[in-house]
């Protein structure tokens, strides 16, 4: 995604340098220790770094803990319905190429009730950043099994443990025709998270970022080992990928992976284990919004076409 808006041609008055605080909306009401706080900070940092005009930036969300996101930013926001952030964001993007569009979803939102939209949004490859904050659980409604809940993990809907192996969002995304940007990061690696968001924002197309996100209330154990022992996490490294020295120095387990190689990306996603980094990027994939952009017209154009059509149907 590109910032098509600069401070000098957006809004009224003199250009002013915006700070992170200028992007802050309501005070975030997530639980203490929730990974969403970390994502919010990284996003605010991104907005500041790119000096995005708040009035030309839209955050669209569905329903769930993570979908409170837009309320905590001072941009335009659309907090819609469960699973349906992507169609709304697609409509906004088709209508307004000048806006910066972000969609924020949870794992139930994106991978369960909104799965059809997810698959097709990947295929449409419409220019936006899609964040999937994956805490492996339905949090807002208090601990129901989600598609990414680990096998055997007890929840209120499956108290004897989740019956099925979790769905892997990366494999699904990489498996869909026309995927153009697939990355994974984690809320506890803030610098990596920021760099990933930055790469996603710079990508032109549907940039899918899965953020491993801790829920201290319902799934405090699922990422615990990864957080305590950074060597359990592999970092994908490549000159074309996402590089961050601090992350690479803490997480010493590195895997060289070319993000241009989709076969390797699919293998890595399916092998199991936890890897952070850029799995795949292809900026050349066709974008629906590039070919299906609303063409400009004047009232005279419109009326000329109507008259032509009336001629065709004339008695």
């Amino acid at each position: 995604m590109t910032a098509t808006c600069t401070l000098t041609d957006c809004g009224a008055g003199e250009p002013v340098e915006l700070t992170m605080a200028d992007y802050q909306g309501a005070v975030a009401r997530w639980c203490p220790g929730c990974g969403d706080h970390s994502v919010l900070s990284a996003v605010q940092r991104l907005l500041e770094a790119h000096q995005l005009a708040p009035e030309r930036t839209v955050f669209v969300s569905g329903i769930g803990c993570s979908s409170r996101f837009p309320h905590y930013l001072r941009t335009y926001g659309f907090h819609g319905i469960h699973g349906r952030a992507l169609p709304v964001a697609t409509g906004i993007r088709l209508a307004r190429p000048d806006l910066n569009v972000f969609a924020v979803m949870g794992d139930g939102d994106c991978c369960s009730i909104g799965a059809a939209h997810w698959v097709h949004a990947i295929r449409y490859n419409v220019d936006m950043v899609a964040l999937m904050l994956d805490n492996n659980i339905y949090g807002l409604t208090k601990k129901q099994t989600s598609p990414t809940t680990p096998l055997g993990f007890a929840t209120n809907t499956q108290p004897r443990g989740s019956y099925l192996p979790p769905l892997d969002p990366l494999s699904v995304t990489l498996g869909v025709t026309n995927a153009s940007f697939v990355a994974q990061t984690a809320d506890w690696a803030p610098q990596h998270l920021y760099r990933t968001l930055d790469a996603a924002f710079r990508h032109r197309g549907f940039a899918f970022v899965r953020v491993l996100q801790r829920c201290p209330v319902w799934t405090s154990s699922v990422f615990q080992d990864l957080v305590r022992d950074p060597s359990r996490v592999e970092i994908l490294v490549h000159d074309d990928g996402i590089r961050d020295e601090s992350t690479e120095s803490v997480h010493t387990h590195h895997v060289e992976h070319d993000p241009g190689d989709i076969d390797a990306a699919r293998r890595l996603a399916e092998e199991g284990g936890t890897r952070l980094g850029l799995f795949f990027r292809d900026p050349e994939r066709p974008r629906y919004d590039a070919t299906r952009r609303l063409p400009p017209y004047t009232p005279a154009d419109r009326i000329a076409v109507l008259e032509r059509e009336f001629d065709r149907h004339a008695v």
Partner: protein
Amino acid sequence: MTTSPSAFAPAGAPRDAGTGPERRVIRAREHCVEVVSDSGEGAQKCGQSFGAVSAKMGNGVWTVEIIPAEIQPPARTPAGASGVRIRLGSGPVTNWGDHAELVVAFNEQVLLARHRQNALADDAVVLLESSWRDHEDETVRTAWQNALEELGTRHYRIVLVPMQEQCATVVDDARRGRNMFVLGLLAGIYDRDAERCREQIAQTFRKKSREVYERNALLFDLGRTWALEQLDFRVEVPTTPHDEPMVVMNGNTALALGAMAAGMDLCAMYPITPATSVSHYLGDVFEDAGGIVHQAEDEIAAAGVAIGASYAGKVAFTVTSGPGLALKTEFLGLAVMTETPLVVVDVQRGGPSTGLPTKIEQSDLLAVLFGQPGDAPKVVLAPSTIEECFHVMVTARRIAESFRCVVFVLSDANLATGVQPYPRPVPDERWLATPPDLGPVPEGLRPYDWDPRTGLSRRFVPGQPGGMHTLTGLVHDENSKVSYAPGANERGCAMRSRKIAVLQSTLEPPVPHGADAGDLLVVAWGSTRGAVEEAVDRARDAGLAVSSLHLTFLSPLEPGLREIFARFGRVMTVEVNYSDEPDDPFVTDENRRRGQLCMLLRAQTLVDVDCWTRVPGQPLRPAEILTAIRARLAKGGRP
């Protein structure tokens, strides 16, 4: 072929066509003709072309498609009957009439289908393809024999026409060319202008090669010549030249043109019968005029994309039918809650569930009004003619924007495929939407700055400096902040509801068709208008004190209804949706389930409104409405 000189065959007996210069002239103010074939043989193309030419020559026209439910029904079966009915008139024609007086059938089985549906007048003239009579396959010959026996129970005059034999002189696959041969037959019978017919053929095949046009024009000439030389009758429906420019099209095309004339930018849809052809037509022309059709991954996403585009300042609409409407429910609630302008076209079909995908019904009214959980007030408009299908879109768009609300346009399968001429609209720049103002939001203005009296407020569009806020489907206050305060929901509901009352305050009371007072008032909505008013006219001609009232606004209801109802002895709705008959087993006045508009009117006016409804999967006929009117009048007085 024998050349019997007799002018008219006796009842039911098939005769080959007569010959000679003497042609009996059937003069009629109106005439109703059907063309029926197996699916894929082009009867619809033939009939629609005939309708268009007739309209161009100055006849009033109404066409109704006869559609088999299956995509490729077996050939030569009653279930596969596909075609079109064209009702011609010297003046405007507003409905499909009662019975066909002339039928052209490509085989005896599809004819049987129309016979069994009581679609044909008892003395109808039938032009029937003769090749099946002497078919090499014995089962075909037997089927022919049996069919003719069954048809013999009525007084049809069956004229055998060697369509295939004739077409074979021009084309290799004679079964393919018959529809244009039949167009020629009709042109000969109704004395249609041959040059206009050839123009119509050229229009039909404009995307094909010149050779295809020429072959079809040749078939047309062949049919016309055959009719002129072989048939002993012709039909004269005097034409009245139009004194103003006219256009002719079906309702879905009119809706699509209306959307363009209203300045809409985006049509987000998912394929569903019978709504899809709106997007077929738009897909062809919309991009020339600055719009796009977005075919979404499902019905839900179609609504979501339209809402997103509307939120972002473009004018968007979505078009669907019953099952799609059900899927869009949650998004429509969101549009109501966030006061995002949205036009939704529902081309109704038979339901529930998959129901009757290709057939007319008016069963979505209550679903549209009350389909959302919680209170979700919205505006509902129902066009009743093809012309209204065009103009309603401009009205709908304006209301959606001025009132920040969801506006439903309830069309149906009858309007969708019905073809009727209407005065050519003169597009007006003022019909188009003005581009959103992206200037800074004035200091102090809030995202829902409801006028406490009217509930109206100005919305902010992304891009407007100083307007940043988050729209939410949660209960919210004027600042669009989520609020659980007891007063917040009360207030939000009141403000959204108030807009409906405000809109009603701008409407005029409707005017009854017929007289202002009488024994019975028939109330109807949508595509039944023509048939209802024709039935009322016939009743009035017979001295009955009957009037009708046609409602275009269903939410809010048009004002003054109670006062109008008070002037009539009885009030009865006529609708194409299901209701219990008062004398059905177990049905009492208290548990009787009534027609959808009827329920609404009873609730809103406290008048004991009765109803007569049918769900035959086809448009109502004036004669059956007249019968219902007589039956209700026979009960006398107040119900």
